C-alpha cells in the first residue's frame, strides 16, 4: 500500500537541508515545507548516541 502513496500521487515534500532543492520543487508547483535545520548542539557522535538511546527506549 505504501508504495502506491507515492507513484502516481501528487508530491508533497518536507525538505531538510539544501534550500535550493525546495526552491526548485516550488518552481514546479510542488507543495514544500522547508525545515529550518541546524546541527544539534554538541557533536554528531553525541547526537547519534542519543538517537540510539531513544530507539532502545
Amino acid at each position, binding site marked *: 500500500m505504501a508504495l502506491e*502513496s507515492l507513484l502516481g500521487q501528487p*508530491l508533497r515534500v518536507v525538505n531538510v537541508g539544501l534550500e535550493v*532543492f525546495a526552491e526548485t520543487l516550488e518552481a514546479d508547483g510542488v507543495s514544500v515545507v522547508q525545515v529550518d535545520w541546524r546541527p544539534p548542539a554538541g557533536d*554528531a557522535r553525541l547526537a547519534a548516541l542519543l538517537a540510539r538511546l531513544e530507539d532502545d527506549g
Partner: protein
Amino acid sequence: MPVRAVLRRSFYQDSVVLMRVAAELRGLPGVREVAALMGTPANHEMLRSAGLATPALAGATPGDLILAVDAETDAQGDAALAAGGRLLEERQRVREATGRVRPLTVESALRTLPEANLAVISVPGAYARLEALTALRRGLHVFLFSDNVPLAEEVELKRVAVERRLLCMGPDCGTAYLNGVGLGFANVVPRGRIGCVAASGTGLQAVASHLAALGEGLSHGLGVGGRDLSAEVGGAMTRLALEALGADAATEVVVLISKPPAPGVLGRLDEAIEAVGKPVVVCCLGAGSRPGAPGRWVATLEDAARAAAATAQGRPWSPRSFEDAAAVRARLGRLERGAPPAGLLGLYAGGTLAYEARLVLEPLLGPIGDGAGDGHDGAHRILDLGADEFTVGRPHPMLDPSLRDARVREAGRSPAVGVLLLDVVLGRAVHPDPARSLGEAVREARALAARDGRALHVVAAVVGTDGDPQGLARQVEALDAAGAHVLPSNAQAARFAALALAPALAPGLLGAA
C-alpha cells in the same frame, strides 16, 4: 598575507548558500582566497591547510558560521568580509519577507503539511540517519541526497523502509524523478513510459537525457544509492523499486542502471528482474552481457537508453560504436597531426561517466590510471574530480567548475597530454553555465599547447537536454567554438578520444569507409 575573519555564532547556512557567498567574494578586488563554511572538524582542518585559520576561529562549532578572507591588503579583506555579511543578511531578509514559519523538525513540518509523502534530506552525512529514520517512521518516502553516511546506517534505514514498503532513495542519491518531478540534480525531461531504477545519479541523468533526445520520457526515475547492490545492502531498494515500477501503470519498459552487483546479490536481482513482468534493460556498467539471464543486458548508458526506446517503439536495435560514422571520419580528418601521440587525460565531474569512459577505453588503449597526476599512472589517466579526495572542503565540480577548469589549463602545459576527455553535466540545481568557463579553459589550454608546437585534442560529451536551464545546444556550441569535439554521448566521446590517439583503431570502430 593578512587573513581577515569573522565568526557568527549559531548562524547555520547550508553548503550551497555558502558556496555562492564564497564565489561572490572571490571576485572582489584583491581577494586571493575565501572560506565561507560552518565550524565542523573537517572544515577546521581545511582552514588550517589553506592557511586561513586564525585564533579567533578556533572555537567555532558546527552551528557557527566562519567567513575568512585572504586579501592583498587588510582593507580589501575587511571590504570582502563586509560584503559577505551583507549577502547573508539580504538572504535572511528575503527569507523573512515570505512570512512563512519554518518548522524546526520533521515532526513539526508534518503538522504544517500533514499529507506530505516524501522527505528530501540533504543534511551533512553525520546527521542524516536521524532525519531519515524520523521520516520513515512517520510513513514518508525518503530521497536521501546526503553522502558520507556509514554503510551500517544505510543497511538499517533500508531495512526500516522495506518493512514499511517505503522507498529510501539513497544515501548518496544525486537524482530521482517522481511523477515527472525531478529531485536533486535533475535534467528537464518529458514524462513518458520508461521507468528507471538507478544506483547512480549521473547515470540516471545520462539515460534520461538520451531518452529525451530519442523522443521518449520517464514515468519515474527511482534512485537507490551507489551501494544498494553491495553484499551488505543486498539490493534491498533496487528490488523494491523494480517491484514498484512493475506495478506502475504508466511504466511500459524498465531500465536498471548500476555497477555490477555483488556475486551474492545477483540471484536475488535476477528474480526481481523476472518478476517485473515488463521488458527490462539492464546496464550494470562493467558486468558485460549475460546471454540467457533475465532482462536485456547492455554495456553503456547510451545503449541502455537506445535499447529501452527501441523496445518501447517496437523496433529492433543492436549496439554501434558511433551513431554517425561518416561524421566521425570527417572529424578525424580535421584533427591537427604532426606531434607524436601523447597520453589521454580524462577530467570528469560525473563519477559514473568517468567509470564508463574507463570501461570503454581500457580494451582500446590498455590500462588507465586514476591517480592525482604524480606521473606513476602510465600514459593514460582518468580522474573523477567529484571523488572525495578532490572535494575536501570544496564544492562538487558540477556546482563549481573552477577546480576542473584550472586542471584543463594545466593540461595545456603538459607534453604528456595529447587528448583531453571531458564531461559536462547540465540540469537544475547545478552550475548555470559550465561550458562558458570550461570553453575559456579549453581555448587557453589549446593555445598553450600550440605555442609549444603540440596538438591538444579536446573531446567532450554533454549530459543534458534543450529543456535544461543551461540549454544543451548552447553548451555544445560554446565548447565547439572553443575547439572541442563534442560527441553525442560519453561512450562515443571516449571512443573518439581513442581514435584521436590511435588512428589504427579506426577499422574496428568505424568499419570500412
